[in-house]
C-alpha cells in the first residue's frame, strides 16, 4: 500500500457573463439588473481611459513609474461596487478602479504616481490604506484592521487585494492563517493576472489553483472569472456579507490576464508570448459587458459616445488639477515623520530650508523617468 497520495481538489471557476457576453442561467437577481451593468460598464470605461492617460503622462515625463490595470478593470470595479463605505480597503497597486469608487479622487491617484505623498491623504475613504508597494505586506495590515473591527464588535469588513506573485510571500499565509483562527472579517482577493513581472504563474507555484491556498488557513477559497464583473460582484458581495455577519474570512482567486507591461519600466515582449496575450484579449472585461448591454439593455453607439465624452472631460479636469498642483513644501519630509518633531531634527529641518533657498532652481517636478527597474 502507499501512504503518500496526491491531495489535489478541484474548485470550479465561477462565471456569470461569458466571454461573448452571454449571461449564465443561474445568475442571481442582483446580477440581472441593467442598472448594475451600466454602472459597472461606465466605471470600467472610465478607468481604462484614465489608465491610458496616466500612461501617456508617464511617457512624457509628467509622472513616475506607473502600474497599469489594463484588462483587469472588472475585478477592481466589482470590489468597489460591492464594498460599503465603512468597510476598509487594503489595496495593492492595481486597484485604481476600486479606489475611485470608494471616493479616492483622480487627482489623488495622479499625485501618488507622480511621486507626491499627498496623493495618499485621501479626502474620501479616510480609513482605507494607501497603495502598498512591498508585495503582500498589506495582507497582515488588513488582518490587523480586521482584528480591530472584531475586537470592537463592529459590523464592517476589510478587503485586501494581492497579485498572484504575492501569494508566494509568507505574509500572505501568515495573515490568512490568523484570519482563520481569529475568525476575522477579512476578504482577500487575488488578482491572478498570470504574471509577476516576468515570472509566469507556473514558475510561481505548483498549485493548480490559488484558491486552494485557503486550505492552509482552514478558510473557504473561491475561484472566479476576474474579467466577469457580474460574477466578481456576486462572489465578493457574498464574502463581504459573510465577513460583516461574523462568518469569517474568505479567499477569492480572481482569474485575469495582465494585458499590459508590468509597469512603465517593463517590456513584456522580452518574456511573454504574444499569442497568449492575444488569446487573453478575447476574454477582456469591457467587450463582454458591452455586448450584454447592447443586446439586453439597448446600449447604443450614441450612449457610448456620450459616456466617453463626459468621462474625457472629467479625466482632463483631474489631469489639469494634477499638473497645477503647487509643489509641496520640502519641509513636509520632516513634518509628517512624527506627531511632533523631535528637537534632534530641528537643526536638520533648518538646514533643508536653507539648502532649498540656495538651490531654488532645484527641479521639484520629476525628471523623465529612466529605466527605473520594474
Amino acid at each position: 500500500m502507499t501512504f503518500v497520495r496526491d491531495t489535489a481538489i478541484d474548485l470550479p471557476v465561477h462565471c456569470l457573463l461569458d466571454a461573448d457576453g452571454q449571461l449564465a442561467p443561474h445568475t442571481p437577481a442582483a446580477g440581472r439588473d441593467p442598472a448594475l451593468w451600466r454602472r459597472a460598464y461606465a466605471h470600467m470605461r472610465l478607468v481604462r481611459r484614465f489608465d491610458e492617460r496616466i500612461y501617456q503622462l508617464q511617457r512624457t515625463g509628467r509622472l513616475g513609474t506607473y502600474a497599469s490595470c489594463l484588462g483587469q478593470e472588472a475585478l477592481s470595479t466589482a470590489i468597489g461596487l460591492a464594498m460599503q463605505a465603512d468597510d476598509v480597503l487594503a489595496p495593492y497597486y492595481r486597484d485604481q478602479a476600486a479606489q475611485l469608487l470608494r471616493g479616492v479622487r483622480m487627482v489623488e491617484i495622479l499625485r501618488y504616481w507622480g511621486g507626491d505623498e499627498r496623493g495618499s491623504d485621501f479626502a474620501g475613504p479616510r480609513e482605507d490604506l494607501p497603495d502598498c508597494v512591498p508585495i503582500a505586506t498589506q495582507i497582515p495590515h488588513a488582518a490587523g484592521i480586521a482584528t480591530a473591527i472584531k475586537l470592537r464588535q463592529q459590523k464592517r469588513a476589510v478587503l485586501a487585494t494581492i497579485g498572484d506573485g504575492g501569494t508566494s510571500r509568507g505574509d500572505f499565509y501568515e495573515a490568512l492563517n490568523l484570519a482563520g483562527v481569529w475568525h476575522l472579517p477579512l476578504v482577500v482577493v487575488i488578482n491572478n493576472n498570470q504574471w509577476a513581472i516576468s515570472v509566469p504563474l507556473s514558475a510561481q507555484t505548483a498549485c493548480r489553483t490559488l484558491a486552494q491556498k485557503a486550505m492552509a488557513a482552514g478558510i473557504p477559497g473561491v475561484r472566479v472569472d476576474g474579467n466577469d464583473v457580474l460574477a466578481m460582484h456576486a462572489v465578493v458581495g457574498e464574502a463581504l456579507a459573510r465577513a460583516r455577519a461574523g462568518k469569517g474570512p474568505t479567499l477569492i482567486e480572481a482569474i485575469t490576464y495582465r494585458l499590459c507591461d508590468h509597469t512603465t519600466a517593463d517590456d513584456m515582449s522580452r518574456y511573454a508570448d504574444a499569442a497568449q496575450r492575444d488569446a487573453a484579449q478575447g476574454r477582456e472585461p469591457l467587450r463582454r459587458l458591452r455586448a450584454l448591454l447592447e443586446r439586453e439593455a439597448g446600449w447604443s453607439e450614441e450612449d457610448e459616445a456620450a459616456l466617453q465624452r463626459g468621462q474625457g472631460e472629467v479625466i482632463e479636469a483631474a489631469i489639469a488639477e494634477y499638473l497645477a498642483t503647487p509643489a509641496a513644501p520640502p519641509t513636509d519630509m520632516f513634518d509628517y515623520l512624527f506627531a511632533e518633531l523631535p528637537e534632534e531634527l530641528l537643526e536638520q529641518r533648518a538646514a533643508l530650508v536653507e539648502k532649498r533657498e540656495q538651490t531654488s532652481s532645484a527641479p521639484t517636478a520629476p525628471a523623465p523617468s529612466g529605466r527605473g527597474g520594474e
Partner: protein
Amino acid sequence: MLITLVEAVDLALARALREDENVVVLGEDVGRNGGVFRATVGLREQFGPRRVLDTPLAENLIAGISVGMAAQGLRPVAEIQFFGFIYAALEHLISHAARLRNRTRGRLTCPLTVRVPFGGGIHAPEHHSESTEALLAHIPGLKVVAVSSPRTAYGLLLAAIRDPDPVIVLEPERLYRSVKEEVTDNGEALPLGRCLTWREGRDVTLVSWGAMVQDCLNAAAELERGGISCEVIDVASLRPLDMATILDSVAATGRCVIVHEACRSGGFGAEIAARIAESGLELIAPLRRVAAPDVIVPYLKLEPLYLPDTADVIAAVRAVMEDA
C-alpha cells in the same frame, strides 16, 4: 512598592490597559502563560482575551497586524519574545510602522509599542542574547528606548504606549529579576527623548543604556574610591537622542566613555561618538567605547568573556584618565 524590572513592566501594562481601552497587548505566550519572562502575568485574567491576545507563532505577522490595528486607532503593545527574533518583524517596522504617518501625510498613524527583551547574561540558548538595537535606531520614523531599572521600565513603557508614534522598548533580560526598586504606580511617565543622569561627576562622562547602565554605576562607585569622579548618563532614549545633555556633560568633564553591550562596529555608540567628534568639543583624552567584540554572541560557555562588564568600564575610565 519594591519590585523587579519585569514586575514594573507588568505594572505599567496593567495601568495602560486600565487607562485606555484602545490598548491591546499581543504576542507569543503573553496571554495564558503570562509571557515567557512573566512580564504579562495576570493581564489576560484581569482584562480578558479581547485585550490580551496570544498570537500564532510569527513575528512578521505580529508586527504586520499591529500596524493594521494601530491604523484603526488601537494602541497595540506587541511583545517580540527575544530580540534575536525581531529580524522577521523588521520589514513591517521599517517599511510600514515607521512610515504610515508620513506616507499618508498624517491621515493614518501608527501608535504602536513593541516590547523586546534584549541583551545577554542569562545563560540562554543561541539567539536569545542579542542587542542589535542599532538597526532600529537608524530608522527615521521609529523611536527607540532602552530601560535600565524598574522605575525607568515603568515610566518609559507608559510613555511609549501613550506616544502617538511607533516606539520600540528594549528591556534588558539580565536585569529583569536582578534589581529591585521602589516604584509607585502613579501613572507618571518619563519623558521620551531625554537622557537620565544617574550620577554626577567631574572627571569622566559615562554614556550608556540598558543593562550596562548598572555596570557604569558599579564602575563609578568603585572608581570614586580611587578618587575618579564619573558622571553616569543613561541615554534611555536612543532616538530621539538627547545629545545636548551628553555634550554638556562631556564639555564639563572633558572625557567620555561610551558603553554598550552590542558589538562595537556600527553599534549606536558610534553615533554618539560621531556627534561628539562633530561638536568640536576639545577633549582632554580621546573618547573610548566599551562594547562587545565584533563577533557573534557566543553560546553560554564563552558568553561571560564576550559581554562587556564593570571591569571593562573601569579599565576604560582608567585609560582615558591616563591618556591625557
